[in-house]
């Protein structure tokens, strides 16, 4: 599902919402949309690349692999808004693990290290049923 708001008019609320099933193959689609949104906000290709990486990373963490996520299966919702800042909110039901399993191949890679390193403005919010990642960049 892809729904668009008013794109491109500087200073107006701009929003796009993408909802994907928890299929790792679909994360690339979200990255492409995020890059397009970032490119509309600025012509800086380094910034576009950073947004593509960060949004893809956030989405991948919530899509999960091999049962990383617990709780009810459901879509991953990605909302992108431009209003002086580029703000991306990624939401999914369930809780994502803070740490890798000791036997995991990704043991040694702290799952949030990349996002925390990429962004100054990054928040993780969890309640009983939903995990929300909020990413924000000044424009």
């Amino acid at each position, binding site marked *: 599902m892809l729904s668009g708001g008013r794109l491109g008019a500087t200073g107006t609320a701009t929003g796009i919402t993408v909802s994907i099933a928890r299929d790792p193959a679909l994360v690339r689609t979200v990255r492409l949309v995020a890059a397009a949104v970032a490119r509309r906000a600025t012509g800086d290709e380094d910034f576009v690349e950073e947004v593509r990486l960060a949004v893809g990373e956030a989405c991948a963490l919530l899509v999960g692999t091999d049962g990383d996520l617990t709780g009810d299966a459901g879509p991953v919702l990605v909302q992108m808004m431009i209003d002086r800042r580029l703000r991306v909110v990624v939401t999914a039901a369930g809780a994502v693990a803070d740490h890798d399993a000791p036997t995991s191949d990704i043991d040694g890679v702290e799952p949030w290290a*990349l996002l925390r390193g990429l962004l100054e403005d990054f928040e993780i919010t969890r309640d009983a049923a939903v995990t929300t990642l909020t990413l924000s960049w000044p424009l």
Partner: protein
Amino acid sequence: MDLSLETRQEDGHTIIEVGGEIDVYTAPKLRDKITELVGNGEYNLVIDMEKVDFLDSTGLGVLVGGLKKVRAHDGSMRLICNQERLLKIFRITGLAKVFAIHGSQADALAER
């Protein structure tokens, strides 16, 4: 873009030339290739990432997992990467200090 993997032997090492995107979808393919090579007794690996367009933490995890596998057999894993956007990812995650990252296949193979 999908992930492409080509392997060849050179100077006692197995070079894996990786192309495309290493992400949550494609990383298992790289993990399986590394597992297959180690299972075949190939413990000195060189991962050439010059044609990699995208790398996320899932891909990093596969590389870390591969490094652990070869080290368990006293082997080595060297990376070839010149792309600043990828090198930045290794630096941010602290993995630039974990991996031997070289600028070319010649440099990677020259290390003793």
